[in-house]
Structure formats: C-alpha cells, structure tokens
C-alpha cells in the first residue's frame, strides 16, 4: 500500500523529488485516485472541490525539473481529468507499471508511454517552458490556444527526461493570463507584434512627414503672399489678361527647373570643394549642361504654341526680362561675364574663347537682323490698309489683313528656336574649350549671376518708394542699409527661386 501510494505520487507527476508530498487532504484525494486506478472507475467531476484542495495543496516541488517555476495552478483539473480518463484506460497497465516505476524517481515514464501529452509551444528558453509536465499534460491537444480542453482521445503523457523522448515534448509557454500556447500560435502572436510595431513606426514616420510638409506649406503660403504684395505675379499678367495654358504650364516647369538648377549648383560646388578627380566632376558638369538642354527643349515646345510668351519673358523676373535677348541670355554677353572667372587660361584657350565670342556676336547680329526684317514686314502689313479708316468695319478686308499678318509672324517660332539653338551651341562650345574645373566654375558663375539678377528684381520691387521718409541728411546710408536688410530678407526668398 505504501508502495502504491508512493507510486501514485510518482504517477501523479513523477515529478517529485522530495519525499514530503501530501498532507491529509491530499492523501484523501489520492486515496480515491488509488481506487480509480485499481477499479478503473472514471472519476466524475464531483471530485471538483477536492481538486481545488489538491491544487492549492499541491506541493511546490511537483515538477520534474525543479529549476523551472511552476505556474500551473489552474491547469490542475484538466490535468486530473485527463489523468483520470487516462487512468481509466490504462489502469491495468499502470498498475503493472507502477511497480516498475517504483524505483524510478525523477523519470516517471508511464509504461508503454502510451500517453504522451504533446505540448507544443516555445522551447525552454523562457524558463517557464516546462511547466512541469503537469502543464504539459494539461495541454493535451497539440494546438492549444490556451483553452483548457479535455485532451483528445488518446492523449499521451510523456515525462521528459530521456533524450529520446525529448523531441516530443516542446514545453509550452504561458502568456500573462497564464494560458498555454503552442508554437504556431506563439509564432503568429510574435508576427502580430512585429507587424504592429512596424505599423507604429510607419505611422510615426508619416506623421513626421506631414508635419514637415505642413511647415513647408506655411512657408510657401507666406512667400506667396509676400510675392503677391510686391506685385510680382500681377506684373506678368498685365493688360493681356490670362496666360495661355501652355504658358502657365511652362512657368511651372520653369520654376521646377530653377529648383533643380539650385541642386545642380550645390552639387557642383560640393564637387569643386571636394577636389574631385576630373572624371567625377565631369559627370556633374555634364549633368548640369544636360539640365540646360532640358530648358531649351521646354522652350522649343512652348514656341510652337506661344512664342510671344517666351519672347516677352513673362516667365522670368523683371530684371531678367528687361535685359533679355530674344527670349533668353545673349551668348556673347555670357562669355564676357564668365571669362574673368576662368583664370588661369592657356593661350590656346584665350584664342578660342575670343573666337567663340566673335562668332556668337556675328550670329546674334544676323539673327537680330532677320527678326527685325520680320518686324518690318508685319508693320507694313498692318498698316497696308489706310490706318485712318476703321478696317474692322470691312470684315473681309480685315480678315485678309490678319491672314497676311499671321503668315508674316509665323516664323516667330523659328526665331525663338534659333536663338535658343545659338545659346545651346555656345554652352556646348564653352564646355569644349574649357577644362573640367574651368567648366564647373563657368557654370557656377552663370548660375550665380542670374540668381543675383533675380534677387535684384525683388529688392527693386520692395525698395522704399518715399525717400523723404528716410531723412535727407542720412538718405544714402539708410537707403543702403534698408536695401541690404531688404536684400537679406529677400535673399532667402530667392535662394531657392
């Protein structure tokens, strides 16, 4: 009897490592268990309360691996239920094996190892993995989601101390609420957590992006307001009213182009400062020149529909517009501007540059003469009918007049394109003549020159109109100071522009 008792204890968990197991209440319970073992009676749930006793009174060392903490208080009754049903099935075997296992202490493998509780879950990494085999037993079904279900028809209990059986027991882990989980669930939960974390990070990044965009928008609106008050935008529309849609789009494209130009300028500056080897610097230079080509291409496209817009320069700042030549810069002027910044130049380069400047001047002159001829033809046509009479009254004549005039100015597009062609050729030829570093400095000089011209436009627009307010005796310095402060405030406005 004593033997049996011990063995029952062993069966109960075979986890015992100490000999002190039960108090009286427990022993009562185990008495019943014994009976069940012997008689094969399924123990009904009327033993529930006793289970509770058992649970609470369970010795703390009811575990096969003493180092692992036990957290299985409320897993007991399924355990017991399970055991009971198992035992009812296997009582005969057990009774037989009980004797055999009497001598085993830490291993209490139920003979036949028919019952194996497969507890799938995370490994013993967290230290709560084992849960003792009590826990394993409670986790009868392979896919436990923490619910305490009765084990499947043939649950298997396996006391894992042997290496051969090790792989069959994967200790489960419990969540905070103590539910048992298997590996699949745990994986899923981990993935969920990961996904949630990523989602949070993404959200954070998005919010930050929104914030910066909001600030930028505020700044843009502020700048726009300032520009409006300075009359910059109003000046462009003038008497003609709205721009053509192609022109409006071109203006937008040009603004983008300027922004990109700013980037090219900084790249180039960085490249020069870093003393890049020529090959690397060359690619930056060539990119910049390609960027100019892009602008010429945009202009050529607009020339087909709205050559007037290009020639009148409504897409540039007032100062640029004022000194524009045929819809852009005058090539020979540009060469004059950049030459001082290209020192040191070889003699060969000096000769070539001079020759380039001369050729540009000749080409410009020829183009201008052609343009002038066009103007003469137009004048002649528009004034062909007597100007004193209202030609408009005579519709057919008027229409005829307009037709001829239209024909005359139809080559306007060609003039703009030839002018841009000239500009483009000049830039490319400069690239040919100069070394890489010289070309870099040349492009920077051009960029800076036009940036200053644009800045001048805004400074001019906001200059103090009433000099009397400044005070006569200190007029000059104050004006200069005022201009400087205005310039500085406008500087930021135009630096991106």
């Amino acid at each position, binding site marked *: 009897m004593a033997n049996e008792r011990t063995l029952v204890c062993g069966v109960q968990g075979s986890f015992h490592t100490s000999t002190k197991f039960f108090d009286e209440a427990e022993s009562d319970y185990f008495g019943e268990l014994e009976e069940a073992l012997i008689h094969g009676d399924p123990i009904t749930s009327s033993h529930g309360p006793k289970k509770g006793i058992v649970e609470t009174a369970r010795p703390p060392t009811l575990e096969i691996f003493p180092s692992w903490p036990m957290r299985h208080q409320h897993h007991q009754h399924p355990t017991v239920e399970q055991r009971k049903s198992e035992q009812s099935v296997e009582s005969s075997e057990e009774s037989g094996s009980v004797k055999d296992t009497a001598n085993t202490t830490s291993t209490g493998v139920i003979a036949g190892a028919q019952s194996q509780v497969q507890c799938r879950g995370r490994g013993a990494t967290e230290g709560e993995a084992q849960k003792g085999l009590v826990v394993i037993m409670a986790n009868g079904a392979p896919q436990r989601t923490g619910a305490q279900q009765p084990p499947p028809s043939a649950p298997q209990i396996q006391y894992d101390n042997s290496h051969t059986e090790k792989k069959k027991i994967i200790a489960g882990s419990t969540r905070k609420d103590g539910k048992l989980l298997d590996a699949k669930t745990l994986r899923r939960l981990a993935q969920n957590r990961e996904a949630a974390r990523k989602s949070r990070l993404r959200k954070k990044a998005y919010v930050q992006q929104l914030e910066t965009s909001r600030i930028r928008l505020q700044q843009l609106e502020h700048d726009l307001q300032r520009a409006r008050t300075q009359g910059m935008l109003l000046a462009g529309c003038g008497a003609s009213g709205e721009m053509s849609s192609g022109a409006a789009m071109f203006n937008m494209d040009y603004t983008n182009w300027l922004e990109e130009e700013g980037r090219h300028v900084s790249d180039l500056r960085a490249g020069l400062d870093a003393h890049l080897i020529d090959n690397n610097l060359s690619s930056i230079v060539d990119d910049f020149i390609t960027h100019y080509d892009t602008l010429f291409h945009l202009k050529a496209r607009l020339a087909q529909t709205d050559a007037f817009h290009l020639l009148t320069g409504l897409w540039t700042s007032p100062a640029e517009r004022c000194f524009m030549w045929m819809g852009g810069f005058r090539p020979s002027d540009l060469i004059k501007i950049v030459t001082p910044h290209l020192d040191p130049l070889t003699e060969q380069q000096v000769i070539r540059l001079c020759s380039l400047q001369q050729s540009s001047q000749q080409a410009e*002159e020829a183009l201008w003469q*052609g343009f002038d001829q066009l103007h003469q033809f137009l004048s002649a046509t528009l004034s062909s009918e007597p100007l004193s009479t209202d030609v408009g009254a005579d519709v057919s004549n008027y229409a005829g007049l307009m037709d001829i005039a239209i*024909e005359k100015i139809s080559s306007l597009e*060609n003039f703009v394109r030839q002018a841009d062609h000239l500009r483009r050729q000049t830039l490319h030829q400069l690239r040919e003549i100069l070394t890489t570093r010289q070309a870099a400095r040349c492009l920077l000089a051009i960029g800076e020159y036009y940036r200053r011209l644009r800045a001048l436009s805004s400074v001019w627009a906001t200059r103090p109109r009433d000099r009397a307010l400044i005070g006569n005796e200190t007029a000059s310095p104050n004006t200069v100071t005022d201009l400087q402060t205005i310039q500085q405030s406008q500087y930021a406005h135009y630096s991106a522009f």
Partner: protein
Amino acid sequence: MRMVEDDREGLIMAYERITRMASNNAVVVFSVSTCCMCHVVKRLLLGLGVGPTVYELDQERGGREIQAVLSQLLSASPVMSGPHGVVPVVFIGGKLLGGVDKVMSCHINGSLVPLLKQAGALWL
C-alpha cells in the same frame, strides 16, 4: 500617269540644276525673298565677307521643283522647315551644308570659316 512622269522628269531636271548651280559658285544660298530666316543666313554670310550666290526660289522658274528636291536632300538631317518651306539651304564648295541650324552650329564651333576658305569664298 503622264503627269507623274513629268513630275519625275521635272524633279530630275531640278536636281541637275541644283547640282549645276551649286558647283558654279563657292557659296550658294537657296532662298525665298520674303523669308526672314533666309535673311538671317544672307546677313551672316555677308557679315563674314562672303558674297553668296542667292537664288530666290519664288522668283526662279521651276522653283517649286527645286524646293521639293531640296526637301528630299535634307530629309536625312532634321531641319526645321519654316513657313516658306525648307529654305534657306546653303551649299558650300558644291556640297550641301544644310539649313540655318547647321550654318549656326558650324559657325559657333568654328568650322564654318575654314569651310568657306577652303571653297575659296574667303580670303585671309
């Protein structure tokens, strides 16, 4: 049928005429009197000291055929055709140079003047 043949003959004749005209003079410009771009080319050449031989196709007989042949000759290189057709077209030393685009490019890259000198249109 006959008209097409006539056209073909006309074109062949025009081509021969062009060849003849071009080789007779160092610099030949095919132009239209009212074309402003032609004026550009003429002024450029004159400014360089060249005395080009100019054929105003609106005043020449068979001018249309000549224009047609010139279009064919220039079809290889992309030439921006103006309102007056493909003119101006420039021949230097009997060889086709191109339209105003080509003339400008050659002048900027410095190859026009040597060509002119080579053809004997410029001295010094």
